[in-house]
């Protein structure tokens, strides 16, 4: 019997957008609104994110950061630019 370590295909790491640095670009993998420590309910946050274009498969790029605490961030999703706080951006997982 061949004992061979089965190499698990490395899935690219999913990073919450809230931790992304300026200049980061990637694709949205999924939304997990409960991960964000937002004042909004998870369902509401998820809806609002989708309404601004944050859907799976959309390309994102972090364009700018705010002055105080590098917050909020200006993110380009496809061809819409949106300003959002890092706290809410934690709900968006990108690869």
């Amino acid at each position, binding site marked *: 019997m061949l004992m061979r370590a089965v190499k698990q295909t490395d899935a690219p790491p999913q990073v919450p957008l809230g931790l992304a640095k300026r200049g980061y670009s990637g694709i949205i993998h999924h939304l997990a609104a409960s991960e964000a420590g*937002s*004042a*909004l309910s998870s*369902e*509401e*946050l*998820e*809806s*609002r*994110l*989708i*309404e*601004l*274009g944050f*859907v*799976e498969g959309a390309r994102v790029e972090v*364009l*700018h*950061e*705010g*002055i*105080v*605490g590098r*917050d*909020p961030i*200006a993110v*380009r999703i*496809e*061809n*819409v*630019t*949106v*300003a*959002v*706080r890092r*706290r*809410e951006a934690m709900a968006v997982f990108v690869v």
Partner: protein
Amino acid sequence: MHLALVGTPNSGKTALFNALTGSRQKVANYPGVTVERKEGFFVTPLGRQVSVVDLPGTYSLRGRSPDEEITRDFVLGHATGEVLPDLVLCVADSTNLRLTIRLVLELKRTGRPLLLVLNMYDIATRRGVTVDVARLSLLLGIPVVTSIAVRKGGTSELLRKTDEIAARTPILPGENLWHPLSAAELRATQREADRIIAATVSLPTRPDTWTTRIDAVVLHPVAGLAILGLILFVMFQAVFAWAQPLMELLSRAFGALGQLVHDTLPAGLLQSFIQNGVISGVGSVIVFLPQIIIIFLFILLLEDFGYMARAAFLMDRIMGGAGLHGRAFIPLLSSFACAIPGIMATRVIDNRRDRLTTILIAPLMTCSARIPVYTLIISAFIPAEQLWGWVDLRGLVMFGLYAAGIISALFVSFLIKFFMLRDYTPAPFMLELPDYKMPRVRSIAIGVYTRAKMFLQRAGTTIFSMMVLIWFLASFPTPPAGAEDPAINYSLAAMIGKTLAPLFAPLGFNWQIVVALIPGMAAREVAVAALGTVYAIEGGKEAADQIGQVLATKWSLPTALSLLAWYIFAPQCASTLAVIRRETGSSKWMALTFTYMLVLAYVASLATYNIAVALAAG
């Protein structure tokens, strides 16, 4: 025929509205809320009369805020007293169709007849975006037209299509199948929208380079703040300094008119009424126009250009720390010149509760009308000394008064949020940063004109009636023949003042001060002339030096300081109260502002007086 304009906030809806209706617009408040209702009228090429309502921008019909609820209710026909639109025009930014197409798919479920307007089509063409309009119309199942709102004749296709649709009799609405979409449904709708776009729109892969370049500077940590500071400074200067000469001119013109009346009419009640009541009243309304026009010129320019969103981005953390909305800084800054344009400027704040909070604290910003009062008392009572060899004592006191205003505003803002808006979850900061656009003169001119007209019609009537009332109190009853004291001492104002004087005694106010505060309700700087009148000094505001000297002999230092403290907080401005009432749509907030400021003024005055007396004795 009734139309409604629906679209995302940066679709150029307002420019389209202006292009269609020109100056034939009516702006009012939706009952009970601060959201504006804009309705306009135009005639189609075939002579059809159309009324169109510009609804608040929204990303979804879900109604996440009072503004969006208005849009939702209007489109669904739930809005009380509103006509169901015959046709809903969905306005889109042609360079940015993802979100609008999703909105269109959602709107389709309501069953209302729709027309998709691809606005800003010139910008799209310039960037190499091509839209297969026919195919898009087929896939969506609704008619689609292109428009260039800012170009002459750019709405011709839209008008033609409107006539075409109206001619199809009758326009049968479909069944209303709409319900608020869940996140999963939103996702599915967005996917469908993306599929449709992929099939009909060819996009260039590169975003607008101009916007990216400008943002690299404007949103830069250091340069960005510097630019913001510069813009705010210029705006502040413009309202403070440039409006001043115009206001002086208007003031003098009305004064001259009053003088004319004085000279032509025989002395008596009619003359007094016309000169001091009517002309003075009307003048005190018109004198605000230069400031309002300048402020709104700046705001509309910045908004159209696209800068406002960037400014909100830069200020978010700083303002947020103070419990204020990022967009509140321009209204609050304007309030340093005068709270009236500042309060009117709060319309840039979409969120109703944030807007309300900003309106309520705007009067605490040290407005320019307080300066004559401050100057009068400071020069009369504070010695012209230097503290520590270089700090001018008088300047320091003035700075302290400004600081007190700002600190108290932040404090009141905190209290409001804590006590009154407890159930309120602050909207998360999620804001679209639109591409920069060249502002259009015509659109801005219409905007400024509409604002000025609104002010005159709404606030003007209230301010005017308050002025007449105050004139009445100060002039009746007329002094008996042979009276030696100034006429005001015999008036109702004096009677009220003397009756109230015991209430103010703990503050160190004598009855003359209390009497002067009554005409002083008209406007803060009127207190200077009113004090002059009460102490029988001729010359009005110009005799400030003389008045100061008399006061220095008659009042104690604690009384003077107490009056200063009073003026930081006291709601001594009928015009501001009138504007608050008009902008909030109800007297409730006006009464609240009056009350809380009065309470603050009383407490501050009381404390100042008694501390000053204690320090002087010790």
